[in-house]
């Protein structure tokens, strides 16, 4: 049986725990406010989310106690296993919302793309530290990690899950900037990206479903088609704007309560929150997120070694990117790409994966203290 080292609890980063629990609580209450209760039959979604949160807390505790260096040692097994799951979902995955994203493993529906974010981050954190030099990476050094990234990227894009695919690339890009590229390599990378962009775009555009293309197109002009693809963004902006300074109050707000705002408990949970709690509530929420990001980066900066630094930085990026995309989408400044808001949106796999990633982050913090006593 797995036991948690007492020192793990002693050196736990309680700032992180407090921030995570606060955001989780806000998420559950917001889900509670816009989804049917017992009277409509079935387990209410907020209770399901609570149980997922419990699973997530367990994952957090497990990973926070699990030495990240040992974890990095398993990173490639984890990576290839994830890749195998992605191929599996490609061939026999369950279709939901017009995309193949789920696969049933032992009675539990899994979204391998969620796992892929974590496994790619771990893979990169394992790959770079051994090869790092003060001079920075040359362009040809990026071939191998590039393939590590492109394989899951292509598979995720084919599902299609645009948000997760872009996230993987984003994490790769940020890690590259942190580990450092040679100036010439940066130029090469920019040039090649520039030349390859039309081909990439072709591949990218063709891999999109009709609704995704519409979303990207209507992002440019949401008013053009109020009942079509731009509808979500219009209604989201209306909900947020109607919230005003102080908000409409808990379980109030006609946009979300009367279902003008679709997906109020998943992708557009922020809009619901903003309608209920107004600009003051939004400020509090964004401060919580800012604290979480700062906490993650702080852990990265204080990590005891380079792998720890990269793991912490990668995990923080992994969390930050969907926050930006989701908030940008609900506020009408980014395309609707169907990215849930981490720790708030309803969804089991995403929540557990996020909590596990945060557990790894916590472990980076813990290990620094443990190493001092060694």
């Amino acid at each position, binding site marked *: 049986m797995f036991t948690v080292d007492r020192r793990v609890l002693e050196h736990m980063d309680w700032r992180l725990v407090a921030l995570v629990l606060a955001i989780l609580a806000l998420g559950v209450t917001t889900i509670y406010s816009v989804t049917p209760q017992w009277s409509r039959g079935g387990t209410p979604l907020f209770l399901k989310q609570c149980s997922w949160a419990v699973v997530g807390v367990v994952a957090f505790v497990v990973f926070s106690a699990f030495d990240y260096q040992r974890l990095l040692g398993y990173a490639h097994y984890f990576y290839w296993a994830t890749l195998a799951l992605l191929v599996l979902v490609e061939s026999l995955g369950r279709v939901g919302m017009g995309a193949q994203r789920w696969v049933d493993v032992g009675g539990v529906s899994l979204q391998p793309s969620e796992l892929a974010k974590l496994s790619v981050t771990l893979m990169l954190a394992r790959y770079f530290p051994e090869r*790092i*030099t*003060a001079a920075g990476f040359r362009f040809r050094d990026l071939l191998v990690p590039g393939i590590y990234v492109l394989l899951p990227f292509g598979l995720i894009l084919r599902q299609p899950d645009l948000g997760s695919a872009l996230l993987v690339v984003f994490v790769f890009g*940020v890690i590259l*900037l*942190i*580990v*450092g590229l040679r100036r010439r390599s940066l130029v090469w990378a920019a040039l090649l990206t520039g030349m390859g962009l039309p081909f990439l775009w072709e591949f990218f555009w063709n891999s999109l479903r009709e609704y995704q293309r519409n979303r990207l197109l209507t992002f440019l002009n949401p008013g053009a088609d109020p*009942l079509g693809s731009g509808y979500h963004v219009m*209604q989201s*902006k*209306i*909900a*947020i*704007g*109607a*919230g*005003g*300074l102080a908000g409409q109050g808990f379980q109030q707000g*006609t*946009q979300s309560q*009367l*279902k*003008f705002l679709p997906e109020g408990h998943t992708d557009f949970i922020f809009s619901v929150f*903003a309608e209920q709690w*107004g*600009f003051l509530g*939004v*400020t509090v929420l*964004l401060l919580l*997120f*800012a604290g979480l*990001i*700062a906490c993650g*980066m702080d852990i*990265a*900066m204080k990590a005891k070694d*380079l792998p720890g*630094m990269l793991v912490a*930085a990668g995990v923080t*990026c992994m969390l*930050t990117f969907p*926050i*930006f995309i989701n*908030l*940008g989408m609900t*506020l*009408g*400044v980014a395309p609707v790409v169907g990215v849930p808001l981490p720790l708030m949106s309803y969804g089991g796999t995403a929540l557990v994966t996020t909590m596990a990633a945060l557990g790894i982050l916590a472990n980076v913090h813990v290990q620094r203290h443990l190493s001092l006593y060694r």
Partner: protein
Amino acid sequence: MNPVDREAMAWALRRRLGVALAVMLTVLLLLLLRSWYLQVLNHEHYEALARNNRARVVVQKPERGAIYDRYGRLLVTNTPSFALALVLDDVPDLDATVATVAALLDLDPKPMLARARRERRNVPYLPVTIRENLTLREVSLIEWAHVAGVAVIGEAKRHYVFGQSASHLLGYVGEITEAQLADPRFAGVLPGTNVGQYGAEARYDESLRGVPGGRNLEVDAKGFEVRELARTPPIAGEDLYLTIDLDVQQAAEAALAGRAGSVVALDPRNGRVIALVSSPALDPEEVSRGVTSERWKAISTDPGRPLINRAVQGVYPPGSIFKIPVAAALLETLGYQEGFYCSGEHPFKGRIYRDWKEEGHGHINLHDAIVQSCDVFFYTYGRRLGIDTIADYAGRFGFGRPTGIDLPGERAGLLPSSAWKKKARGEVWYPGETLSAAIGQGYVSATPVQVAAFMAAVGTKGTRFAPGIRLGDWSKQDGRFHLDAPRPLPGVPLSAATYGILNDALKGVVHEAKGTGHAAQSPMAVVAGKTGTAQVVAIAAGVDRKKMDTAPPHLRDHAWFAAYAPADAPTIAVAVLVEHGGHGGGVAGPVARQVIEAYLKNAERNVSDDALVATLNKQHQAGGEM
């Protein structure tokens, strides 16, 4: 890499991490600013949009006022009916929705789809009717299916209690047209509303139509009602009380017996219209319901021309009735004429003008000339008077000018004069034309309502009123019925002797042995009247006037009979015109008699205005609606 380098490397990485953190926090700050922009700077705009999303005004149409006759008998009312309607703003996919509903009701979707497409309007959330007259079973099927954007609306449909009776007077309703929507007189009327398009329905539409109300609803994203926020009840239209007496109206219609023509009966004391018939009638209920364009074409091109209200729009030569104003002019200028000899013909400028009685009337005076309707007498004296003197007197009695009856589309008829001919035709007046005019042929023409109003003026010895179809209304102050004041017109102040002579002559027409209007005799009262024959084709055209009764119907003359009764204190004046009825006395006279008798039967109810009002008030108290 040695430990020193490693440490330097780590610091380089930490610096980059710091930069990354700064960038991320900046992005968060920008997102917060965006939130500020939406929530604080543009809060009102988005709150208004949110309100627009959920708030909806559902229009409630007012009930159109009913129409009653002078004794409070219900003529026009509304009956409930259910219609299938679409709120197009809530319909996600028009074709699919219509297909669903059509399958539900087992109907052909095509016509419904066509109507929904055609009736796209710019008033938001106004239901568009796509099928009327749903059965209760269909209503419950639709309510049960609960399809987004599909609604059953209760509509009040116009019901004309006596069918085609008084159809031209009552008129009909129809959906407001594009032109009417732009007309300020229809301000506040919603598209799709039925408004009066003809007759009294059109003339008194403003008071009949009422004011629409509305319900302010909160709806969910599918357009279903969540709750009612406010309600403005519609204001029902006011009831319209007409001057007509249904008994007289129906007697007149029965007397015409399907022949094309018109009957107008007025109360000479105040101009109230007692009956107003134009035949053939239309079916106001059919037209109000809305007819297909083919059916409309069939109605409007019907050779019987049912869309013409002959009473106010039909212009006919007045024939011998016009001899009365000529006689009045004669009496006032040249005086009473005696010792005239009628040989049956009147040569003038190389042409022979014939009398209707070939052998002539022999020695007669003015009285006999009217009683026997001698043409030669009026050829002779008409020429002596000249057209402009005739036009002067006839004009004072209202010929050539609309009577001002409160019905749409009234025509003026024509009263020729030398000035008129110069102006209209650019020619001088020929004396020969005066001969035709003196017996009411040629250029002279008049509508039945003009003739009735003229007879009323003769009966009242020169007092004239504009005919009116509205009796009055219920006062909002005291809740009692108030009669509309008569609308007096300039009188015709001729000498008492002149009126006495005319009255005697007109009584003679009906009651003397040689009179032409025996058919109008009634045991109920002394009737004063005059026959008339409006020539359809000129005498010279070769039709043998003696064989008029056997001539093809469309060549036969129109028959006139104009009368008032009781002759010495008239309470009714009547004009009857029967198209292609041949000679006036035989065909039109009995119609006039039946109208007069039907009216006089109700005499005790017509004793006075007070009696009329008392009847209505009593009825109102007894239970209002009848």
